[in-house]
C-alpha cells in the first residue's frame, strides 16, 4: 500500500511525507494530517503548527500538495494518489 491508491470506494489513498495513508472519501487534507498527527508547518520561531480555523482564514494549515507550496489544506478535499509534504 505504498503507492497511495484506495483499497475501497469509501476510502482514498494519499501519500504524506512519503508514507501511505488511507482517509475517508470527502475528507480535507487538513483532517487527514490531523488524523496522522502530522504538523503542517514550522512557525517563524520554530513551533509546530496545525489547522486552527478550519475555514481558510488562519493559514496555519499550509502544506505542499502535489508539488504546489503554501496550499491551505483545510479548503482542499483529498484526491486519490495525492502527495502531501509538510514542513519538517
Amino acid at each position, binding site marked *: 500500500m505504498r503507492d497511495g491508491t484506495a483499497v475501497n470506494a469509501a476510502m482514498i489513498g494519499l501519500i504524506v511525507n512519503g508514507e501511505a495513508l488511507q482517509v475517508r472519501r*470527502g*475528507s480535507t487534507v*487538513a*483532517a487527514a494530517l490531523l488524523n496522522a498527527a502530522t504538523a503542517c508547518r514550522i512557525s517563524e520561531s520554530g513551533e509546530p503548527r*496545525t489547522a486552527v480555523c478550519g475555514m481558510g482564514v488562519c493559514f496555519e494549515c499550509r502544506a505542499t500538495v502535489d508539488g504546489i507550496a503554501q496550499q491551505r489544506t483545510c479548503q482542499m478535499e483529498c484526491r486519490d494518489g495525492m502527495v502531501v509534504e509538510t514542513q519538517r
Partner: protein
Amino acid sequence: MKHSFDIVVVGAGPAGLAAATAVAEAGRRVAVLDENPRVGGQIWRASLSKVARDRSKERAVARFEASGAKLFSGHQIVDGDAAGALESWVAATQSLETFSFERLILATGARERFLPFPGWTLPGVFGAGGLQALVRSGYDIRGKRVVVVGTGPLLLAVAAHLKQDGARVVLVAEQAPLSQLMQFGLSLITRPGKIVQGLSLRAQLANAQYRTGCWPVAALGDGTVTGVRLSDGSRTWTEACDLLACGFHLVPNTELATLLGCEVGDHGVVVDADQQTSVASVYCVGETTAIAGVDAALLQGRIAGLAAAGRASEARTLHMQRDAERSFGRRMDRAFALRKEMLTLAMPDTIVCRCEDVRFSQISQAAAPGNGWTNAKLQTRCGMGPCQGRICGPALNALFGWKNTSVRAPLFPLPIAALCSSPLATDDATTLVTQEN
C-alpha cells in the same frame, strides 16, 4: 477566463444561497462564488459524520439548485471594483478568472474571534467552530477529551456536535457571567424557538459541565496540548484534555466590502432597509452586516436578492421579521460581551500574530499612545503574514481598539506567477508568500 452575469453573489452560505435563489427566480442571470469546495457556508457545512437532518438546509439547497443560479465552487475572490468586476483565484487550476456584473451581493459571512493567551498556539488548540469544521471534514476525535472555552452561543452548539461525533466533552467554560446571560435569556421570552434550541443543546451535553463566569488562563503542554488552566476570578485550576476548542464569538468578514469602498461600522458592513451598502451597486447580507445567526442571514439574503433584481417592494413584508432577528443579534452581543479579564490574558512572551510570531511585549512596546496598528505593523511585522491580520486584527481591536483600515488587493496571498500574469495591481508586495514550505 471571463464570465458575465447580471448579478454576482459572493458566499454560498445561507445568506448567499437565499439571495441567489431570489435573483434567479426573478429571472435574472446570477452566479454564486465561494472558495469552499461545497455549498452551505459555516452552519450548513457538508459533513462526513452523521449529523441530524437539517430540513431548512435541504429546502434551501433544493430551491437554490432548482432556481437556475450558477454555482462556482473553489473560487476565492481576491480583487474587485464596485464598477463591475471581480477577480477570483481558482486553486484547482492555479488560475485567475474574471466575473463582470451589474450588481453585486456580498455574503462573505463571519469568522471566529481569537484572543491570545499563553499556549494558544500549541497543536491541539483549535477554534471552536474550527474544530467542528475539521471534524465534519474527516478529523476523527472519537474518545478524545475536549474542553471548550471562550464565549458565545457557538460554544454549546459546537460542544453538542463534538459529543455526537464521539468526543468526551469534559467542560464548556463560558466567560460571560450568569447574570449577564440570564438577561439575554429573559429577553428571549419573545422568541421561544431560540430558547428551546438552547435548552436542547444543553440537554444533549448531559454529562459535561457548563460553567459560566469561567475562562482560560493558559493552554498547557509540551509539543501538544495536555490541559488547560482555568479561572473563575477567585480560584484557578487545571483541567486535563486532549483538545482545546476556543472561540470568542464571531467577527464579520468585511475585507472585500472594504476593498470595494463600502462603509463599515462597528458591527459590520453598513446597509439600508433593502440591504444596499453605501456603494449603490453593492448589497450585503448575513453575518457580514452583523452577527445575528442563520435566520437573519436567510431573510437578509431574500430581501437583497429581490431588491437587486428590481423587485424590492415584494420584500417589504419581510422587513419586520429581519429587524427582529437583527435585534436578537444585538442582544446576543451584549450577553456575550467580553469581561475585562479577557483582555489581559496575554503574557509578554505570548504570541499574538501567529503568522510572524510577534509577541505581546513587542506589540505593547509599539502601542504608545496615538500609535495605531499601522505603526505596530511597520515595527513588528504584526499582521503582515499570509492571513493579513485576519486572526490578530480582531484580537488587537479588542485589546487596543485598533482598526485595520488598510485593505489591499490581493485579499489573499497569491503565487507570484499568478500576479505577473494578471491585471491585478498590487502595491503591497509584503502580502506575497514567497517562502517555500
